[in-house]
């Protein structure tokens, strides 16, 4: 009896091993087949192993893997392993850098982290890729990753945060068209309210939705030069331009009866809920002001179709600010400089590599060499190509701050802008608490 049992287990193990082997060989043959089809020239001279840690998970991870497969076809001797660390990426990285064992490459959404690690001396410069970048990237986007003239961060996945998403039926009910200027935008909001659908859905439980709104207003009202100055704290948050932008912002966040759930409701609405509030058949609000990642949430929450059910317009202009884009994205950093990591960085910076991801959707290529036809649908094409076409492209300002001020839940900008949503009349108080928190963060972070 006992012996039979062992035989059974051995047989089972053998079967599983064979099955696993089949799976593996199948995958392998599939990859080699695709590489054969593409006919990419192979480079066998470079070999090694590369570990990448990044924020992309789920569909994004699959898409990135597809991009990596393209690399594998070109460099068959380099083994690249990607690990998703999701929202914990900053934690994982700072712990592993502190412990002296960082991954070879990492992608992060906070340029502040690139600064942090550069100051700690953990990063290797990416200047070797300058040629590829000049050929593929708009100059303004390359500049984003530069520290003291050297490239340390490479924007690999862009995001357009200057977009407003609306429920088409709600706009039709109110009899309005997508506004283009700030004055039209506010007038449309008034009409929406009279039509019975509140104009705004605000995801105030997540502070970053509020900072994004502020930054869009500030970039347009104060201009790119002031925006840059504020992002490096060369001007104070108590500057008149900041107060002016806060007052403009109060026209939206202070319009309590025009916000889904009112102020108290908005403070408890997280970003996904703020999107589903707008994109349902009986919407609680008509529009949500957020970036190009909104459709991902729409798709997962209901059945509204793009263009006929929901649509997008660029953030309204304030003055002559057409094609101003406030954006964000994920930057690549290098912790270990080897021929293999260099090859991968060069590859990822090309329009060819980024087209692979663009075709799969949910992606805005920072490279201008990705053709508009690469994007799968009209809405993505509109939001994604706006980045390449932008007259002014500025990185999300809060992401450029020290993390304790610009990227921590419950303190710094997130908390203070939530306080502003609570009491939009307190412009001076908010400006001075922003300045106080910023000064402190810059002092301890230097």
């Amino acid at each position, binding site marked *: 009896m006992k012996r039979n049992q062992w035989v059974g287990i051995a047989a089972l193990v053998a079967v599983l091993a064979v099955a696993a082997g089949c799976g593996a060989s199948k995958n392998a043959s599939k990859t080699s087949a695709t590489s054969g089809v593409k006919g990419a020239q192979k480079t066998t001279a470079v070999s090694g192993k590369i570990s990448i840690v990044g924020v992309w998970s789920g569909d994004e991870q699959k898409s990135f893997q597809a991009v990596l497969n393209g690399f594998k076809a070109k460099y068959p001797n380099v083994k690249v392993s990607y690990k998703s660390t999701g929202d914990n990426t900053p934690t994982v990285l700072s*712990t592993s850098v502190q412990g002296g064992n960082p991954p070879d490459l990492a992608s992060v959404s906070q340029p502040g982290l690139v600064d942090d690690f550069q100051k700690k001396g953990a990063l290797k410069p990416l200047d070797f890729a300058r040629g590829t970048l000049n050929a593929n990237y708009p100059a303004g986007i390359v500049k984003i990753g530069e520290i003291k003239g050297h490239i340390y961060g490479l924007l690999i996945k862009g995001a357009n945060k200057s977009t407003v998403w609306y429920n088409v039926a709600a706009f039709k009910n109110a*009899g309005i068209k997508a506004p283009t200027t700030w004055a039209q935008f506010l007038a449309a909001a008034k009409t929406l309210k009279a039509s019975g659908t509140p104009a705004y859905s605000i995801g105030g439980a997540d*502070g970053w939705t509020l900072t994004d709104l502020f930054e869009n207003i500030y970039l347009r009202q104060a201009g790119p030069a002031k925006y840059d100055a504020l992002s490096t704290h060369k001007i104070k948050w108590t500057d008149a331009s900041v107060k002016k932008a806060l007052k403009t912002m109060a026209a939206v966040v202070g319009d309590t009866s025009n916000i889904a759930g009112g102020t*108290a409701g908005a403070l408890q609405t997280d970003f996904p809920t703020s999107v589903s509030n707008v994109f349902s058949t009986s919407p609680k609000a008509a529009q949500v002001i957020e970036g190009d990642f909104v459709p991902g949430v729409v798709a997962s929450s209901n059945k509204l179709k793009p263009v006929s059910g929901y649509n997008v317009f660029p953030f309204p202009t304030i003055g002559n600010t057409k094609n101003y884009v406030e954006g964000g994205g994920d930057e690549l950093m290098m912790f270990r400089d080897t021929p293999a990591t260099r090859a991968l960085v060069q590859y990822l910076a090309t329009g060819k590599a980024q087209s692979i991801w663009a075709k799969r959707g949910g992606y805005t290529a920072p490279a201008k060499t990705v053709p508009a036809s690469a994007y799968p649908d009209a809405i993505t094409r509109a939001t994604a190509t706006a980045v390449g076409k932008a007259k002014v492209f500025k990185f999300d300002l809060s992401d450029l701050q020290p993390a304790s001020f610009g990227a921590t839940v419950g303190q710094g900008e997130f*908390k203070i802008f939530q306080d502003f*949503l609570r009491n939009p009349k307190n412009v001076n108080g908010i400006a001075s608490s922003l300045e106080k928190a910023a000064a402190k963060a810059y002092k301890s972070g230097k």
Partner: protein
Amino acid sequence: MTAAPPEGGPGVVRRNAVTLGFLAPALFVLGLWIVYPTVYTIARSFYGQQGFGDFVGIDNYKAIFTTSILTTAIKNSAIWILVAPAIVTAIGLVFAVLTERIRWAVAFKTVVFMPMAISLFATGVIWHVMYIKDPSQGAVNAGIGAVKSWFEPAGALSSASPSTAALTGSPSTGYVLHKPVAAGGVAELGLTAIPPVDVPGGAKQVAVPTPKQGAITGIVWRDFKPGGGVVGKPEQGELGLPGVKVNLIDSSGKKVQSATTADDGSFTFDGVKGSGYRTGIAAATFAKPFGGVSWLGSKLITPAIIIAYIWVWAGFAMVVIGAGLAAISREVLEAARTDGATEWQVFRRITVPMLAPVLSVVFITMLINVLKVFDIVISIAPGSTQSDAAVIAVQMWRQSFGGVNDFGLGSAIAVFLFVLVVPVLLLNVRRFRREV
């Protein structure tokens, strides 16, 4: 007991070596996982964000007591310590005593104990959803709303508001046309912000009634058409609001008549003489549906989390106290009852004192647990009230790993938390000694 060996012989050395050999693995583990991290953390707490080399002295400790988000955390931890262990122990005691007397004791115990089987983080997620303000999403507010709507039903036009300043008042007092109307006059009551779904079925194009001798006529209409239209003017494409109850109030403020609007929004008050009348719509029409209690707002967030925490731990307290209860000798209780003690006296004078050691175990365990409470706070509080809900352990994590990356300040908070736990630990160690 063996006799003591002679001093200083080779046997002593060997025995010491053997002792050390046996202790070595334990010492190694203790050293690696307890002593080294403790020493490292204490040392790190005197350095700034940039690591060793950035010596800041006791600045990090000063920051704990001067930064407002950290003092809030200390205050919240104090509330937790004062409230949670005592309530958990009390509820556990009550449940334990009650389960001794009810029929379905096992089922009851299982249900109360069940939350222990879920991780605190999952508990937090569940309660977060239950606490959502919108009654259509949060179970707690849905329950309150269901009860409340029995007594205060929502009005037919709960989201409506006046389209112009001609109507004055508020949703809670109702709206009245500011300008008095005389007999033979027409009252136009324009309302706006009515979602299409709230417009009553059968509503028709609004029609301004002709003035009528000896009567006041008027309309209630949705002063909106796609594009907005002219505010305050009944236009082609705007609908009358049927079924709205309109009141006629005379100059002394007394309600004289009321009428209900027709499909085109018109109404008529017949047999009116003189002037100075006001027309208005009563508050009941505008009664808002229950909007929900802000459980997750800055004021209620800490009590709300403590309730969830008690829900989890009451079962643990009940089971431990129940075990203690089972160990009490029945004779004493019986003797007291025979002597004529009431049930309350038995509970108060015999059960509780005899349970004292068990109660203190539960209380101290909860005290230590509460000091390090973390996951349930993180998972229940939304981003906007994370800082209002934070406790010391949450800030320890937040300042070091949760975005700030200031391991110096984080270490200082860790040391502070350790100092807070020490007295409780000593108490516990002393109790262990006494028991052994």
